[in-house]
C-alpha cells in the first residue's frame, strides 16, 4: 500500500470514528433526556398524551378521522428528538464551554457535525414507532399491513429531515443566547403549519407555501397515504420531497455552523454567552 493510500484509508477511518463514536459520546453527554427518569416522562409519556389530546380534539370538532390524528401526531413527535435533541447536541457545547476545545481539534467538521445527528435520528424513529404501537393498542389504529415497511421508511426519512432542521436550530444556538426559545416555538409551530392537526387545505395559501419547505409536511402526507392503504407508489413522491427538504436543511445547517466557526475564530468569541 502506498503512503498516500494509507493516509487516505486512515483519514476515512478517522472520519467514521469521529462520526460514530464522537456522535455517541456527544449524545450521551449533551442529550438531557437520556436518563430513564427523564426519557420516559418526556420522550414517551408526553408524546402519548399529545396523540390522545389531539385525537379527542378532532372527535370534539368532528374533523378528520382517528387515523388522521394518529399518523400526524405519531410522525410529528419524532421532531421532539430532532428539534430539541439537535439543539442540545450542538448549542450545548457553547453553553458548557466545550466548543473551543472541539473546534481546536483537527477533526473533520462534517464528521463532528453529522455524527451528532445519528443517535438523535434513531431516538426520533423510536419515539414515532412507540406512538404508532400505543395508538394501535389503545386507539385501534390499524395501518394497512402491506404498507408497514414503507411506513417505517417514511418515519425514518422524516426523523432524518427533522434532525436536519434541528441541526440548523442548533447552529443558530452557536450565536443566539436563548436558542431553546426558538426551538420551543418551532416545535409548536410545526403542529399548526405542517398539517399535523389541521388539514393543509384549511390553511391560508402563504402558510401552505411555507409548509412545503419545512420537515414533516411531506412525511406526514406520505404516512397518511400509506396508512390508508393507498400503495407505496402514491407516497414515493412525498417521501422523496421529505428527503430533499431534510438534506437542504442539513446542508444549510452545516454552512451556518462553518460560518459561525469562522466568525468565532476571527472574533475569539466561541463560548461567549
Amino acid at each position: 500500500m502506498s503512503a498516500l493510500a494509507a493516509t487516505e484509508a486512515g483519514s476515512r477511518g478517522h472520519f467514521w470514528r469521529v462520526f460514530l463514536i464522537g456522535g455517541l459520546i456527544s449524545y450521551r453527554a449533551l442529550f438531557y433526556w437520556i436518563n430513564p427518569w427523564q426519557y420516559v416522562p418526556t420522550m414517551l409519556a408526553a408524546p402519548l398524551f399529545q396523540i390522545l389530546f389531539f385525537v379527542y380534539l378532532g372527535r370534539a370538532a368532528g374533523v378528520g378521522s382517528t387515523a388522521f390524528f394518529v399518523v400526524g401526531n405519531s410522525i410529528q413527535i419524532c421532531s421532539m428528538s430532532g428539534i430539541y435533541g439537535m439543539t442540545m447536541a450542538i448549542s450545548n457545547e457553547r453553553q458548557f464551554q466545550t466548543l473551543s476545545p472541539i473546534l481546536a481539534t483537527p477533526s473533520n467538521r462534517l464528521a463532528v457535525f453529522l455524527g451528532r445527528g445519528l443517535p438523535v435520528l434513531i431516538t426520533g424513529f423510536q419515539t414515532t414507532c412507540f406512538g404508532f404501537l400505543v395508538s394501535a393498542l389503545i386507539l385501534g389504529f390499524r395501518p394497512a399491513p402491506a404498507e408497514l415497511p414503507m411506513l417505517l421508511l417514511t418515519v425514518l426519512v422524516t426523523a432524518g429531515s427533522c434532525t436536519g432542521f434541528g441541526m440548523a436550530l442548533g447552529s443558530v444556538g452557536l450565536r443566539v443566547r436563548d436558542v431553546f426559545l426558538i426551538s420551543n416555538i418551532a416545535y409548536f409551530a410545526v403542529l399548526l403549519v405542517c398539517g399535523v392537526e389541521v388539514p393543509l387545505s384549511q390553511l391560508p395559501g402563504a402558510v401552505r407555501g411555507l409548509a412545503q419547505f419545512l420537515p414533516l409536511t411531506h412525511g406526514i402526507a406520505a404516512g397518511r397515504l400509506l396508512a390508508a392503504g393507498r400503495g407505496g407508489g402514491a407516497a414515493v413522491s412525498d417521501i422523496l420531497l421529505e428527503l430533499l427538504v431534510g438534506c437542504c436543511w442539513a446542508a444549510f445547517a452545516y454552512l451556518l455552523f462553518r460560518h459561525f466557526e469562522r466568525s468565532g475564530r476571527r472574533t475569539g468569541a466561541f463560548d461567549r454567552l
Partner: protein
Amino acid sequence: MAEPLRWPRVLAIGWFYQLKMQAQSGFMIMTALVQPLIFATIAMADQQAGTRSLPILYYALGAGIMGIWSTVVFGCGGVISWQRHQGMLEPLVMAPVPFVLVLMGITLGTATVGLYSMAATLVWAEVVFRAHVQMADPLLFSVSAVLTVVSLGLLGLVMGSSFVLYRNSNAISNMLEYPVWLVTGLLVPLSLLPGWTRPIAYALAPTWGVQALRATALGGQPLPDIGFCLVASVAYLGLGVWLVGKVEHRARRTATLNFQ
C-alpha cells in the same frame, strides 16, 4: 407590627416581584403567549373545518386556561428546586416570615403571568376568527378569571412542594401539560372522555375555572362552578401549607436544604 399583619405585605411583594421577573422571561412569554395562540388557532381551525359547532369563544377560553396551566406547571413545579439552584433557599427559609408565604407569592405571581394567554386568545378569536367576544356577565367573568388564577397558583404551590422530592421535576412538568388539558375539558367536552377521568377532572381547579368562565361568557349558571373553584383553592392551600411545612422540616432535620 404584629407578625401576621405583615403577611399580606410579604405575599403582595413576593407576587409583584415574581410577576415582574416572569414577565421578562422569554420562556414564560413563549409559554403564556405563543403556545396558547398556536393551540387556539388549531382548535378554532378544526372547529371551522369540522361538523360539530362549539362557539369559537369556547375554544378561546379553553386555550387561555391551557396557557395558565403551562405557566403553572413549568413555573411552579420546580419552584423549590429553582430557589435551591439559585442558592436562595437557605436565606428564604431563614427569613422571619413563614416560608410558605414566600412560595405562595412566587406561585401566584407565576400563575398571574398566565393571564397573558387569556387576553391573547380572546383578542386572537376576535381579530383572526371574527368571533364576537362579548361576555354575558363581565363582572362575574372577572371574578372567575381572578379565582381561576388564584386556584391554579395554589395548585402550583402543592406541585412545587411535592415535586421537590423528585430530582427530575422538569420531566414531570413536561409530561403533565397534555393530560391535564385533556381531562379538565379545556378544549374537549368532558362528556366525550371516558367516565373514569371524571373524578380526576373534579379534583383539578382548571375544570371548574373553565366552566365558570364559559358560563359567565356564553351564558349559564356560573355560581356552582365558582363555588367549587373556591373550595378547590382552600383545599390546595391547606395541602400546600402542610406539604411545605413537611418539606421544610425534613430538610432542616437532615441538613439537606441546599442539596441538589
